[in-house]
């Protein structure tokens, strides 16, 4: 009886590991979409609203979903504290702080980092151009992420379950 319970526990935990890994593949396209929306809102704020960057970050951060929003909110906070941080530095710092909580990869980091160099340090048209460029990049990444989700989500789920089953049978 104890043996059976142990086997069940191994099986369940292995399935959970597989499920957790597959979750990152589900989250990435969702968060990429949120980031896209955020950048488009930022464009509106900068080009048409002429909002100061700190307030624009704050507004955007409040309106998109939590993981992505936190990035902008903490960038706004860092700007507000005014310890002589430039827009780029504060965005970089916010990214470093909140990156582990997102499902993003290195490519998104590069896109955001190159965008951060321009934000708040050039005129409207230039910033708009770079925002559009970043949005195009992120669109491509989103498509890629969706293809990856279709491919790997199911695979990791069944891989976890089958791995657990294998371990159980070998030990039984």
């Amino acid at each position: 009886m104890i043996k059976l319970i142990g086997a069940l526990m191994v099986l369940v935990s292995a399935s959970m590991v597989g499920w957790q890994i597959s979750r990152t593949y589900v989250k990435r396209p969702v968060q990429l979409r949120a980031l896209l929306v955020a950048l488009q809102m930022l464009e509106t704020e900068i080009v048409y609203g002429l909002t100061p960057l700190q307030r624009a970050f704050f507004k955007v951060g409040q309106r998109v979903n939590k993981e992505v929003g936190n990035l902008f909110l903490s960038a706004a906070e860092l700007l507000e504290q005014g310890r002589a941080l430039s827009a780029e530095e504060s965005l970089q710092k916010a990214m470093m702080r909140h990156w582990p909580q997102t499902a993003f990869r290195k490519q998104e980091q590069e896109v955001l980092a190159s965008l951060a160099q321009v934000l708040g340090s050039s005129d409207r048209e230039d910033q708009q151009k770079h925002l559009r460029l970043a949005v195009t990049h992120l669109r491509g990444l989103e498509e890629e992420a969706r293809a990856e989700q279709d491919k790997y989500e199911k695979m990791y789920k069944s891989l976890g379950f089958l791995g657990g089953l294998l371990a159980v049978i070998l030990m039984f």
Partner: protein
Amino acid sequence: MDFDLTPVFQIGAVGFITAILHTVLKQAGKEDIAHWATLVGFIIVLYMVAHYVGDLFTEVKRVFLFK
């Protein structure tokens, strides 16, 4: 004659799971990893079989060499 059938089923199940694993990995386009998984499954089964064949040899020795 009482013969324990558990190892037979165990080996069969490992083979079965390895086959499914191979299919799943192949569907996901990771053929190289699929082949490695099959190889690992094969080695596990080989190890188990070698164990029982070793038992068989000692048994044969015991019966025919009177030790």
